[in-house]
C-alpha cells in the first residue's frame, strides 16, 4: 500500500473515530424536543438553567404543537411540546402509548395594535365576531359600547392567526366554540382551522406577536408573556360570570382550580370560576411510555425521565418570573405519577 494512500486512510479512520466517539459520548448529554411556542420562553429559560446545572443540552425548537406531535410520532425528537391534548386519532397514529405531563399554565390573550394602547373590554361575541371577520373596523359600535371611555380609531382590523398547526389556536378556538354557536358551526375547534378568507397567517406565537407589533390596526392571539415582554396592549375578556377579567397569573390559577384526571387531560377554557380568566390552559410535554424504541440507549431514556422530573418540581420556580402560573400541588403529583410510569424494556425508569 502506498504511503500516501495509507496516510489518507489513517486520516479517514481518525476523523471517523472522532465523530463516532463524540456521538457515542454525547448521546446522553443531549436531548431534542420540538413543538409548542406557547411555553417556549419558559422552556428556553428552564433548559438554559438545566444546562448550567447538569451540563445536559436540551435543544427545543418552537415549530408549533402540530409539529411537536408529528415529529414525536415520526420519532425524530425525544419529546414533543403541545398545548392541545393529543386526539384519539393522533394517539393511534403514534403506534405506542404516549404520555402527557403538564409543565405550566398560561393564558391566551387577544393582542392588538392601536394608537395609545388602550385597554379594551372584550365580550365573548366581540372576540368571536372579530375573528369571524364580521367586525372589521375598530370603530364598530359594539366595541364602542363595551368601551365607552376608549377612543377608537376608524382603522380597519387586520386579523392575524397562526399559519402552523398550533396548540394556541386549539385553546383559542376551543374557547370560541364554547361561547359562540356560529364559531362552532363555521370554524370549529382544532390546531389548524379553515379560517375566514382575507386574514393573515403567521408562524408561531413570536410570528403573530411580531406582526401585530408592527401593524397598526392588527389583532391576534398569543400567550400572555409574549404580550408582556413586548409591552403590547391586550384585552380583558368577559367570563361566564359576566366579569371582564384581566389575564394574570392569579386569574389563570383561579381558572385552573379544578380536579385533574389521572391522564392530566383537562380543559380550562370558559371557566365557571368568578375571577378566572376564560382562555387559560395547561401546556403539555409528550413522550413515549416505553422508551426502548428505535435503538435508544437506556442512558438517554433516563436522562429524559430525569429532565421531566426536574421540570415539574425544581424547574417550576422559573414559571412565575415569566408570568406563567406554576402547576398546582395536585397537578405536580399527577405528573410525577405519569413520569414514574415511564419504562425501559418494561422496567420503570424512576423509582
Amino acid at each position: 500500500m502506498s504511503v500516501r494512500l495509507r496516510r489518507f486512510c489513517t486520516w479517514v479512520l481518525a476523523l471517523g473515530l472522532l465523530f463516532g466517539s463524540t456521538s457515542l459520548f454525547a448521546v446522553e448529554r443531549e436531548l431534542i424536543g420540538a413543538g409548542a411556542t406557547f411555553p417556549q420562553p419558559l422552556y428556553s429559560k428552564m433548559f438554559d438553567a438545566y444546562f448550567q446545572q447538569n451540563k445536559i443540552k436540551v435543544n427545543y425548537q418552537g415549530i408549533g404543537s402540530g409539529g411537536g406531535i408529528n415529529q414525536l410520532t415520526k420519532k425524530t425528537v425525544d419529546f414533543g411540546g403541545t398545548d392541545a391534548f393529543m386526539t384519539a386519532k393522533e394517539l393511534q397514529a403514534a403506534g405506542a402509548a404516549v404520555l402527557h405531563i403538564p409543565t405550566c399554565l398560561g393564558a391566551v390573550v387577544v393582542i392588538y395594535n392601536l394608537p395609545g394602547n388602550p385597554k379594551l373590554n372584550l365580550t365573548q361575541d366581540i372576540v368571536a365576531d372579530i375573528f369571524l371577520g364580521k367586525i372589521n373596523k375598530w370603530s364598530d359600535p359594539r366595541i364602542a359600547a363595551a368601551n365607552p371611555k376608549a377612543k377608537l380609531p376608524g382603522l380597519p382590523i387586520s386579523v392575524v392567526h397562526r399559519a402552523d398547526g398550533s396548540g394556541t389556536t386549539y385553546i383559542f378556538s376551543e374557547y370560541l366554540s364554547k361561547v359562540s354557536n356560529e364559531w362552532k358551526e363555521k370554524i370549529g375547534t382544532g390546531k389548524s382551522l379553515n379560517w375566514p378568507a382575507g386574514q393573515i397567517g403567521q408562524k408561531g406565537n413570536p410570528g403573530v406577536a411580531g406582526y401585530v407589533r408592527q401593524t397598526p390596526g392588527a389583532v391576534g392571539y398569543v400567550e400572555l408573556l409574549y404580550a408582556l415582554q413586548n409591552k403590547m396592549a391586550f384585552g380583558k375578556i368577559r367570563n361566564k360570570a359576566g366579569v371582564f377579567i384581566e389575564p394574570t397569573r392569579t386569574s389563570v390559577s383561579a381558572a385552573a382550580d379544578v380536579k385533574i384526571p389521572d391522564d392530566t387531560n383537562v380543559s380550562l377554557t370558559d371557566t365557571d370560576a368568578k375571577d378566572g380568566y376564560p382562555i387559560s390552559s395547561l401546556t403539555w410535554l409528550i413522550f413515549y411510555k416505553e422508551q426502548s424504541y428505535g435503538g435508544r440507549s437506556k442512558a438517554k431514556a433516563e436522562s429524559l425521565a430525569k429532565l421531566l422530573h426536574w421540570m415539574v418540581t425544581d424547574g417550576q420556580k422559573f414559571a412565575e418570573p415569566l408570568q406563567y402560573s406554576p402547576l398546582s400541588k395536585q397537578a405536580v403529583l399527577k405528573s410525577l405519577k405519569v413520569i414514574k410510569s415511564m419504562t425501559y424494556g418494561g422496567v420503570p425508569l424512576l423509582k
Partner: protein
Amino acid sequence: MTEMCSVNGIGMQDINEKTETADMTAKNTMDKSEQRFGKVLLLAAVFVVVLLLAILATLVAASIPAIKAFGLTFFWGTTWDAAAEKFGALPFLAGTLITSFLATLICIPFSIAISIFLGEYFKEGVFSAFLRSSVEVLAGIPSVIYGLWGLFLLMPIMRAIEMYLGVTPHGVGLLTSALILAIMIIPFSASIGREVITLVPGDLKEAAFSLGATRFEVIRNVIIPYARSGIIAGILLSLGRAIGETMAVTMLIGNSNFIPTGIFDPSNTMASVIANEFAEATGITAASLIYVALVLFLVTTVVNIVGTYVIKKVALEASKEVT
C-alpha cells in the same frame, strides 16, 4: 494496487518503479487503469442522472396517497383544510402564478434597461463596472435577507400605500411579495440579457449606423429583434426562479390559504405553503404537501429546460453567423 494509486492521483514515480520491475505486465495494468478511469468518470456522470431520477421518484412515491385521493381535482380544488382532510392546490397555484408573473412584469423594463445599458451604451468604464458589480452583489444576497429587509422597509411602505388607498393595511400580501421577487430576479435576467445583447454581431450594427440610424433605431430595429428570443429566454429563466423562491415570499406573503381576490390580499405560494406546513404535516396532509412539491418541481423543470434550450440556440446561431 496501481489502479487505485492512479485514481487517487498518486505520483508518477510509484508507477515508474513498478514498470521497471514488471515490464511485461505494465501495459496490461495501464490499460486496466485506463478502463477504471473511464468507469469512474462514467459512474459519476450516471450518478447525477440517478440523483435526479431519485428525487423525482421520491416525490412521486411520497405523494401517491394524495394523488390517489385527489388525482387531477387537486389542481382545481379550492379548499385546503387539514382538519377535514380536503386538499385542493388551486389557491397556491394562483398565488404562485400571480406573484411570479407580476414580479416578472415589474422586472422586465428594469432588466432590459440594465442589459442595454451594459451591453450597448456603457460597455466599459467606471460607471458600467459599478453597475455590473452591483448587479452581482444583488444576485449574491441570500433570500432570507431580502425577506428581513422586506419586513422592515417594504412592509411599512406598502402599509402606508394601502392606508392611502383605503384597503385593509396588512402590509404583507401578493404585491409585497411580487415586489421583493422582482428585486431578486432583476440581476439574474439582466445578466442574461447583457450576454445576449453582446452576442449581436458588430457588422450588423455597423451597417445600420453607416446608413445613418440613431442608436435608438439600431437598438429597436437591429439589436432587440436579433436578441429577442434570448431576452425572452432570460425572462423565462427568471420566472422559473421566482416560482421556486421560498424564504422571502414566506416572510412577506401573509400565508392565507384562499384564492386571492385582490392584489393586496394575503395569499400563499406553492413554496411558502410547504415551508409553513411541512414540519407538522402527517399522513394525507404531508402527502398533499409533497404533491405540491412535485408539481412545483415539474413546473420549474419545464420552464428551465425551455429557457436553457432557447438560450443555447441563440448562442449557437450567433456563433454560426460570426464564422
